[in-house]
């Protein structure tokens, strides 16, 4: 499985990518919409993990952009919000397969990733 992780917190996303690699998941990462668009245009990913609240372009907006570049890519959203009701509605509207609240358990994330891509 090859995934792309997107969050404006570089120290979070780089550590998460390394932990996923130890679990057999090839993970690239980006900290903004522009970097993500470039990576998704140049590579084939099964899944994108997007932070909902990012500067300039939100995770939900970024998903709409990426869908045009990689229509079959699946999505998982990460949120820092303690209360998930509003986010759940937003994620459902955006067609997210799954969402998780930060901080995430790596086992939960891997499980959701496998479910999302059907592996």
């Amino acid at each position: 499985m090859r995934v792309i992780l997107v969050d404006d917190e570089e120290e979070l996303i780089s550590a998460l990518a390394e932990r996923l690699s130890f679990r057999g998941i090839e993970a690239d990462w980006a900290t903004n919409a522009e970097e993500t668009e470039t990576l998704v245009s140049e590579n084939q990913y099964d899944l994108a993990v997007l932070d909902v609240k990012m500067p300039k372009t939100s995770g939900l907006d970024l998903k709409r952009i990426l869908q045009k570049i990689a229509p079959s890519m699946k999505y998982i959203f990460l949120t820092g919000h303690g209360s998930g009701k509003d986010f759940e509605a937003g994620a459902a509207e955006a067609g997210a397969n799954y969402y998780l609240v930060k901080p995430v358990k790596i086992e939960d994330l891997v499980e959701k990733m496998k479910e999302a891509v059907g592996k």
Partner: protein
Amino acid sequence: MNCKLDIVCETGLQFFGKMSSSNFHEIKNALAIINENAGLLEDFSNMTSEGRIIDSERLMVLARKIMKQVRRTDEIVRNINRFSHSVDDFVKRVDVGETVGFVATISERFAVMRGVVLEPKHPETQVRIITSPFFLENLIWLCLDFAMNAAGDGKTVGLITEETESGARVRFTRLDALGESSENMFPTEREEALIKVLGAYLTVNTEAGEIILGLAKTI
């Protein structure tokens, strides 16, 4: 619900909630970084127990990252604590320059999300007035919120505190797109209500790209 909230109370509660949730969101981000880096340490620990050698410098880097996030969290908690205490006294002596800097600090995430840089400039000498600390913070935030939307392509908002004969003045500067924003939208009834409470005045100078908040020496 039979009672109707006064607009000042309503605005104050919204401000309190907005700042609290934004700063708690920042704490969640810091905790998430601590979680992943501690998780990496755990992964490395498991690897060493399987006989793999891990560079000690790598472990040191992870430990430093965790400590950095603990310091970040501590600072956010201290700010939230200070913010919560700003309702303790309705009226007290306040350092305006310091209050402007504090509001800029707790609003930082909103600025980052909009790609705006805040540049508070502290006065050389303290500018002190007797006012309501919480409602002053609230009014500074409302001005700043509007100013960030009017920052234009420069994406920078200057915050300059000055002493005046009648008290103090806070200038929100470098608002390149102030002319493009509808002047009728600002001040709204929320700002007007707080202006009355604080005995303040607001001037929107489109040509200079500035909003000026004048504050009375005492309320």
